[in-house]
C-alpha cells in the first residue's frame, strides 16, 4: 500500500467508520448504503484538506468510489 492510498483510507475511515480498512478500497456510492450526499461533501472537504487539491463543482459527480478518487488524486495531487 502506498502513502497516498494509506492517507485516502484514513479519509474514508473518518466518514465511513463502520467499514473495515481493507473493505474501504472496494467501496462506492452505489454499493454502500451509508454513503449519502453528506458523506460525499465531507469526503471532498477531507480530500482537499489532506492532499491540498481543489476540486471543481463538476468533479463531485465523478468522485463516487474509492477507485475514482484514488485515480483523481494520482492525476491531480500536489506533492
Amino acid at each position: 500500500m502506498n502513502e497516498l492510498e494509506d492517507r485516502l483510507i484514513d479519509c474514508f475511515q473518518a466518514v465511513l467508520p463502520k467499514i473495515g480498512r481493507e473493505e474501504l478500497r472496494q467501496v462506492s456510492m452505489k454499493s454502500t448504503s451509508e454513503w449519502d450526499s453528506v458523506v460525499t461533501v465531507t469526503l471532498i472537504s477531507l480530500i482537499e484538506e489532506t492532499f491540498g487539491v481543489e476540486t471543481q463543482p463538476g468533479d463531485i459527480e465523478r468522485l463516487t468510489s474509492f477507485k475514482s478518487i484514488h485515480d483523481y488524486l494520482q492525476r491531480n495531487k500536489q506533492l
Partner: protein
Amino acid sequence: MSVIEMQPVTVAPEDRPMKLIEALKIVNAPPQQAAQHEDVFIVCGFTPLHLQTFLEAHLLLRSPDRRVRVNSGLYGDVAGNLERAAAAAPDAVAVVLEWPDFDPRLGVRTAGSAALSRDELRESIYSQMDRFQKIIDERLAETTLALSLPSLPARHSCIQQSWLADPVNATLRRCFADFSLWASERKNIRLLNADRLDQLSPPNARWDAGAELATGFPYHLNHTSILADLLSRLIRLPLPKKGLITDLDDTLWRGIVGEAGVDGISWTLDRHTHHHALYQQQLSVLAHAGVFVAVASKNDPSVIREAFARPDLLLDVNHIFPLEVSWGPKSVAVGRILQTWNVGPDSIVFVDDSPMELAEVQAAFPGIQCLLFPKNDPQACLGLLDRLRDLFGKRFISEEDALRTNSLRAQPALSTDFLETAEAEITFSAVKNSSDSRPFELINKTNQFNLNGRRFTDSEWLHYLQDPETHLLSATYRDKYGALGKIAVLGARQSHDKFFIDVWVMSCRAFSRRIEHQCLLRLFKAHGVDEISFDFRRTPRNNPIQEFFAGLVGENPEGPLTLTLAQFEQRCPRLFHTVKDG
C-alpha cells in the same frame, strides 16, 4: 522547558485550528462507559455540515467524560429552528446567524432582486431581528444560548464602489450593534466577541463561495473550526484560575530595584516601559474581581517595601497577599503562597521574565501555568494580558469575589478559644434560586471539601434546582474579623426519615471553623431525620472532607456512607456560631 510557554499566545490558547479529519476521529471515537449525555442544538440558516462536526468535537474535547449529541434544524429557517430547539429542550443552543437569515437578498443563493434601498432593508432586517428575539425571550429564556452574529459580509448588488460605505452597510452595522446590545443584556445568552473572532480568523479567509453555492455551507474549514471552538467555550465556560503569582523586577516594573534604586524602576511612556503599567493595571482589575495576587521576588524586603510606597504604582499593595520577598528559590516562595491561599497548583498562574525561574517553579509544581513576561516586546505583552483575561475571566463578579482577599488576610489561628470569641454567625438559606450563580460556581470550582467531585453543566444545575425532590442548603459566614460570604452549599434528597446528600462543597477559606458540623446539625434538626446518607466518593483532591468524615465515623470512608444522629452527637465538637435563617 517544553512545558513553558516562552512566547505568550497572542491569538488563541490552541496552536492551530483543528483539522476536519481530527474532528471526525474525535466524534467517531467510542464514548466512555457511563458517560452522561449532553444535547446541543445548532440553530442556523445554512447547512450546518462541518460546523456540526467541529462543534461536537470541540465540546467532546472540553468534557471527555460526556457523550455529546449535536442536532440541527432545517435549511433557511432560523425562526423555525429556534422553535425546534425550544421544543427539543437541549442542554444548550448554539445560534449562528448570517445576513441572509435577516434578508435572503443579502446572500449569494438568491438572485433577481433590484438594488436594495436602506429604508426597505431596515424594515426587513429589524422585523426579522424582532422575530428572533421574541422567540428567544419567550421560548429559550431558561436555556444556555451561545450566539454568533454575522461573521461574513453581506453580499448585495449595488452601484457604489466596494471601498465606499453605502447606506445599506451602515444599516447592517447598526443592526449588528443593536442585536449585540440586546443579547449582552440577557443572562442566558453568551455572545461571541466579534473582535476576538477577527483576531483568530481573518475576515477575508472565512467565506468559501464555491462550497456555499454547491452545498449551502458557507465557511472555509479553518473558520469553521475556530468558530466552533469559540462556541464550545461559550457553552462550556472554562473554570477561571484562582490566583496569580508575579515577579517584580523586569515584570511588575522595568529595572532591578536593588541596583537601580526605587526611583530607577519605571512603568511610563517616556521611558518606553509603559507595558509594565498595563500589566499592573490588569493585575489591579483581577484583584478587584477576587483573584488572589501574590509576589514571589528575590530581593531585599526593605527595598521592596520602599518600592511599594511609590504613589504612582497602579497596583495597590493592599491587593497583594502574601508578599514573598527573599533570596531563596522561587519554588519555595511559591510553595508558601499556595499554603497561605490553601489552593492547588493547577488553579495558579506564575508570571516571571526569567525562563530559568519559570523552569524552576514548573519543575516543583507541574500543575502551575507558567507564563513568560516578555519585557522587551510590548506587542507580546498585550498578548499576555489577553491571555490573563482568558485564564481568569468570569461573566459576573459576585459579592464573595470582593471579600476573598480580605478574608485571607484576616485569617487568624483557629483554636477553640478563638472560635469561642470570634462572634461567628452562620446564615442558612434553603431557597433554590436559579438566578443566584454562587452555588453553581462554588460546586464547579471546589476541589478539597467536595463530597464527590461532581460537576454540573448550566442545564444540569437548572434541572437539579427544578427537581421538586431536591433540597438546597447554602451557608453564609461572618465573624468579628470580617465576612466570608456564601461559602458552603449542600444538595440533598429526602425520603421518609432519611436524607441523602449528593452534593456538598465548602470553600477552602472557611476551613477549621466547624461550619461543616453546623451544616449537618442544621439538617438533622430542621428535617427531623435520624440518619443522613452521603454519596461520598474519593477524588485525588478531597482529603479535607475525607478527614472530616473520619473524625465522625472513626475511619476513612471508601465510598457512600451513612451517619446517624447518635454518631454525630457523640463526636461533634462544641459549636459557637449564632445561627440565622436567610
